[in-house]
């Protein structure tokens, strides 16, 4: 909790091949943070990415509005025939994802190496 940041969420992208990417988040995923992630994710989808991993290692706090936006991203990716995965979640964020059913539609990985291998990124 001491790591809570109220600054805007920061997002970094690592493109991997022609249709893959890892998106790194840092900060609070609220409505504003969720929209920032969505904007980047949709740009990547428009550019052909169909396998997208979100690494939340530096995100310690989420809220339900932010997660609802992540669900919209998953829906759009599924519509395009792609796949989204998440890795490096805190136990509480993992639990919150499960409560909201997000874990039923996206893959959850413990670490980035395992996720990259499984998603063939």
């Amino acid at each position, binding site marked *: 909790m001491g790591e809570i940041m109220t600054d805007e969420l920061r997002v970094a992208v690592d493109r991997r091949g022609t249709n893959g990417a890892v998106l790194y988040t840092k900060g609070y995923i609220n409505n504003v943070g969720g929209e920032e992630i969505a904007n980047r994710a949709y740009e990547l989808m428009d550019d052909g990415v169909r396998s997208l991993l979100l690494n939340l290692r530096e995100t310690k706090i989420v809220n339900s509005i932010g997660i609802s936006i992540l669900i919209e991203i998953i829906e759009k990716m599924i519509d395009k025939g792609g796949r989204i995965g998440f890795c490096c979640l805190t136990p509480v964020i993992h639990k*919150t994802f499960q409560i909201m059913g997000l874990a039923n539609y996206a893959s959850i990985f413990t670490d980035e190496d395992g996720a990259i291998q499984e998603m063939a990124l």
Partner: protein
Amino acid sequence: MTAERQMELTLPMVPDIEIAAARAAANLARELGMASESIDEMAHALIEACINAREHSGSADRRIYVRIVGTSLAEGNSRVDIWISDHGKGFNVTEARSRRQKLGAVHKRGWGLQIIEAHMDEVDISTNADGTTIHMVKYGRLEEPTGSVAR
């Protein structure tokens, strides 16, 4: 059982104010030695309660009233009671609890109450046309000496 820590906050309903409430509760729980995972669960529940008040209460005074009481229990355990109140219009608890959204559903929001109840050990809601108070309780074991509580 003796209340060892207590604080009251009156917060304006502005974006991200929930973080201030969560930080205050986390600091109090940390002073009691509560384990970091329990603190994080409590913080996420508190965040959702504040967001519900801010987004849905329709209160005229645009204030969230937060009371936090931390208590040390036997054998190194602890308990944190949190009351989140607003002077809004109230809501239908049964309807809110029955929401179970699915992927593809029109309404993806409205998960706050489910998240609160999943992360806290006890939740009691009093709501009517004059406002809402959510009383929630988190029990925590003592942080292990080798644990790494985020500061």
